[in-house]
Every structure is written in C-alpha cells, then in structure tokens.
C-alpha cells in the first residue's frame, strides 16, 4: 500500500492536470472579444502552469515529510 501503481499515478496526475488547467485558465484568460489567446494570456498561462507545478511539487514534498512525522508519532508507521 506504500506505492501508487501505474494506474493510480496516472489518475493522480490527471486530477492535478485538470485542476492546473482550470486554475490557470481562470486566472489568466479574461478577454472574450477574440477566440485566440493573446500574447499576454499565452505568457501568463505558461508562467502560471510552471509556477503551479513547482508549487504542487513543493507541497508534495512537505506533505510527505509531515505525514511521516505524524505516522512516527502515532506508532512508528505501519
């Protein structure tokens, strides 16, 4: 139970991915006078995606550390 298998990993990434798209779309795209992304929107999407990704990775690392601490406190893990 300590490993995510292939399917679970894929699923995990898809959730993250759909959240990332949704978040960055909502923060970066606000002009609907055209159906093409403007240069400004395009740049914003790139930076937002990069930042969100790095953010998620950092949260993931801290999450693991905190989880480990907690499990050690409870009974040295399982």
């Amino acid at each position: 139970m300590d490993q995510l298998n292939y399917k679970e990993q894929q699923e995990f990434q898809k959730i993250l991915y759909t959240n990332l798209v949704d978040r960055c779309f909502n923060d970066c795209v606000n002009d609907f006078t055209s159906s093409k992304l403007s240069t400004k929107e395009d740049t914003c999407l790139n930076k937002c995606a990069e930042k969100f990704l790095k953010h998620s990775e950092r949260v993931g690392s801290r999450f693991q550390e905190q989880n480990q601490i907690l499990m050690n406190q409870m009974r040295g893990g399982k």
Partner: protein
Amino acid sequence: MSFLGFGGGAPQISSEQKIKAAEAELDMVTTMFNQLVDSCHKKCFDKNYADGELSKNESLCIDRCVAKYFDANVKVGESMQSLGRSGTLGQNLR
C-alpha cells in the same frame, strides 16, 4: 473516447484493465467538461437572470471561451512536457 491524448500511451494491458482505464478516462472527461461549463459560466454571465435565453453576446462569449479553454489546455500540456514533468508528481506520494 480519447481526450487530449490521455489514455493512449499505456503499456500492454488486459481487457479488464482496459475497461477500468476507459472508466477513468470518462471520469476525467466528465470532470473537465464540468469545469469548462463552470468556468465559462463564470466568465460569460452575470448573476442577474432576467431572461432564460442566451443573448447573442453570451453565445459568442461561450464559443470563444470553449475555444480558448482548449487552447489553454494544449498550452499547459506543452508546458508540462517541456518542464519534463510528466511522471514525477504522482511519485511524490509514494
């Protein structure tokens, strides 16, 4: 139903796994579709529901919103690939 290339690249899998993969696929398309409906609803409507019909402006806004959402999707997918982050995130939880 394949969407944005997801669901294509899996290794050899059994037919039971195929069904599960297809279900997961559908889950994701459903999630994304609902986020899309929600986001474009926020972008294109105010909360004043004077009329049940879509105005011409609202219809135009919806069409552009969906087109831009798809472009954003592709864009973000490319960003992720260029950052070489296609397999690392799930592994963080290992």
